[in-house]
């Protein structure tokens, strides 16, 4: 049996331990952890307090988007006011915050993220190039 016949089995063997644990590319969480390090490990929680790395990561895993807002509201001052965070959440996420203490919103992968349009764009580019390659002589 040629070894390439084993490729699908190898792919499945690799997929089994990874599905449920990781994604194919950096998720927003990984991105925020890099941001977190870049901001001298001082991102804010929903109350304006500082987050530890562990807290930041789990907050992100929980779908808490205020890390994004904290970063985008970042002005170089460590003393961001809660009101500014709320304004930022409303602005960035295009939602209306019902109360000052309600900052937690989930951003699904195919909801507020570019996952679907980006996937479609890449598929379009790929299949367009594929058609071109079939028309080329030789």
């Amino acid at each position, binding site marked *: 049996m040629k070894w390439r016949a084993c*490729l699908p089995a190898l*792919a499945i063997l690799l997929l089994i331990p990874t599905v449920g644990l*990781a994604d194919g*590319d950096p*998720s927003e969480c990984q991105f925020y952890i890099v941001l977190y390090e870049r901001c001298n490990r001082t991102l804010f929680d929903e109350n304006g307090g500082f987050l530890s790395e562990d807290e930041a990561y789990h907050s992100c895993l929980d779908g808490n988007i205020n890390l994004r807002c904290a970063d985008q509201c970042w002005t170089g001052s460590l003393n961001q006011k809660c009101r500014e965070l709320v304004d930022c959440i409303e602005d960035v996420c295009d939602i209306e915050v019902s109360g000052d203490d309600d900052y937690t919103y989930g951003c699904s992968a195919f909801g507020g993220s570019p996952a679907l349009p980006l996937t479609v764009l890449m598929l379009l580019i790929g*299949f367009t*190039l594929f058609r071109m390659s079939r028309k080329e002589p030789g």
Partner: protein
Amino acid sequence: MIFAWLRSLGFTLAVEVPVFVLFARGQVPAGRAALAGAAGTLLTHPVLWFLWPRFFHDYTSFIVTGEILVAVIEGFTFFALARSLRLSRAISASFIANAASYGLGALLRSIGLLF
């Protein structure tokens, strides 16, 4: 974060390498196609994870530019290592392989199978 990256690398290889082999079928031996596809992924994956985020403030800009850059680099790598394959075919394979790994990852995450 290293373990998360290694798991992600495994997932990416599992999705992308068969796509590269499929697109090179009949033109490049499967073994060489698999190695050429894997080489591109091994080259670009750490860049996308650890280096590229440092240039951006928002996730959308990061992921859109990063994925397209990765697809182009992997396409050229695949073209160079697979040989006997047209450049347009190599880059098309790369775009579709990366769309598959990124899209599948996002889809599985959206239904709660991935973190």
